[in-house]
């Protein structure tokens, strides 16, 4: 059955559309939230060390943790902490914090909800399906279209634990396999509301203030914006060899500059 999981992993790598080079000296797989940081850092690092090649793959936090646990990659990227089952299955994993992310609740720029602020309870009522029309929030008479991440996504598990508080997200929500897909859907549909990592904010969508605070570096650092989390690179045991050097690089000033450039928040 080992063979089956190898095929599956191969398939997933292909699906994620960014298969690493066969000859990569170090492969990092997992969270699509962490991916832009690691990809950029790998590019810069390889330029400084021309004889090393680092492959970066997506797959989601769960896949990254599983792959590093099984030893098929040296480093797994995750946007959530290890679950208790994962800790039990792979007790030797080390979690290294490399950046801070924050989740933004986003709508289409033409949606006037972007000018107002929601409470966490209102966000919860919207996503649980209790509020289904923008007129209930003082907007026009339009149905709310919920857009969420797929089951198992790190962004989704963060959203569920920080916002939903044991309430289920409505089963009418559209599920998207990546943050970029959420942005695409919300930017193309004025009825849509979704959530994504702050690194994915751009002009095509607008963040909503939560409890009166807009997501930004300052508000996350000041802990006034409620939806933020740490991002991790996971290794088997203490990071060593190339993996250790790469993680050290990410934690250096130059590495943290990349974190910022990619739209995430530097570690203090």
């Amino acid at each position, binding site marked *: 059955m080992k063979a089956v999981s190898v095929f599956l992993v191969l398939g997933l790598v292909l699906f994620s559309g960014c298969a690493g080079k066969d000859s990569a000296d170090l492969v990092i797989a997992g969270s699509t939230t962490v991916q832009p940081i690691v990809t950029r850092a790998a590019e810069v690092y390889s330029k400084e060390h021309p004889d090393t090649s680092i492959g970066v793959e997506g797959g989601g936090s769960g896949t990254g943790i599983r792959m590093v646990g099984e030893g098929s990659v040296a480093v797994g990227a995750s946007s959530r902490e290890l679950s208790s089952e994962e800790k039990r299955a792979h007790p030797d994993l080390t979690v290294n914090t490399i950046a801070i992310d924050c989740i933004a609740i986003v709508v289409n720029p033409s949606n006037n909800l972007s000018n107002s602020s929601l409470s966490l309870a209102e966000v919860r009522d919207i996503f649980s399906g209790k509020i289904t029309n923008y007129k209930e929030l003082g907007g026009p008479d339009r149905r709310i279209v919920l857009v969420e991440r*797929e*089951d198992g996504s790190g962004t989704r598990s963060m959203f569920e634990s920080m916002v939903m508080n044991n309430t289920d997200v409505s089963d009418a929500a559209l*599920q998207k*396999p990546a943050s970029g897909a959420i942005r695409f859907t919300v930017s193309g549909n004025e009825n849509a509301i979704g959530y994504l990592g702050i690194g994915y904010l751009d002009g095509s969508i607008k963040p909503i203030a939560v409890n009166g605070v807009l997501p930004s570096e300052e508000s996350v650092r000041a802990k006034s914006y409620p939806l933020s989390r740490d991002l991790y690179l996971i290794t088997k045991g203490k990071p060593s060899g190339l993996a250790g050097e790469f993680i050290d690089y990410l934690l250096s000033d130059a590495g943290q500059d990349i974190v910022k450039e990619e739209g995430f928040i530097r570690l203090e």
Partner: protein
Amino acid sequence: MKKLFDQERVVGAALMVFSITALVILLLIMLFILDGGLPLFNKVSVSDFLLGDKWVPAKGLFGASQFIVAALLVTFGAILLSVPLGISCAVFLAEIAPGWAKRIVRPAIELLAGIPSIIYGVFALIIIVSLVRVTFNVATGETILAASIVLAIMILPIIISISQDSIESVPRLYKEGSYALGATDWQTIHRVLVPAAGPGIVAGIILAMGRAIGETMAVVLVIGNVEKMPAGLLDPGETLTSAILLEMGEAVVKSTHYNALFCLGLVPFILVLFMSVLSSRLTTKNKARFA
């Protein structure tokens, strides 16, 4: 002469080994899917799986009927849209088109078959989804209809090529007989040629259905992926294959969730297998009729 004979045998044997490899691979895949999927039924009954409509892996609920219904709706929608278009195009190419048009249109259609499905998906996400949303004034254009439309385009080449070949393989005698009786072109086409090519055309449609039911990438982008029983073509849904694509990355290997995803794969696998057998039977029958 003896040497040549040996060479023939060696080549023959080699080819046979290669073709058996394909069969062995098919059998292995079938075994893997069964091995991955069947343990589900120790925990969940077959009827709960096929008829239940609540899919909540965390709570041990594995009802897949909404995925099956969505997959069938998408497939039939695609067939409904592509069959009239495909057969008309095949008739045009086989009977009406002047040589130069044939030389341009046929390769263009075959090219359509070679476009990767992700490209169709992105095209549909940008164009068709917006089109559906605006045309039908629905909250989101990510619907079963959008998936049907993109699938219809994707399966057109299969329907057109097979239908055209079937129409062209109707013996000349049939056509000449019809004209000799004083039938017009149109009467000949719809009373003689198309019915005579019928089994071949149906085989093409069945093959196209198999393609449609298994298509994943283009569908997952435009169907919305909502794990709820769709009420109609203008609702979002989630097909069997999109559920596998979305969840396989997270399912713990060998867990019930993992087994259930294999079972989701088993459903289209069995349907496609059945359709392929039916299709190849019809093709053989068609050939035998004109032999």
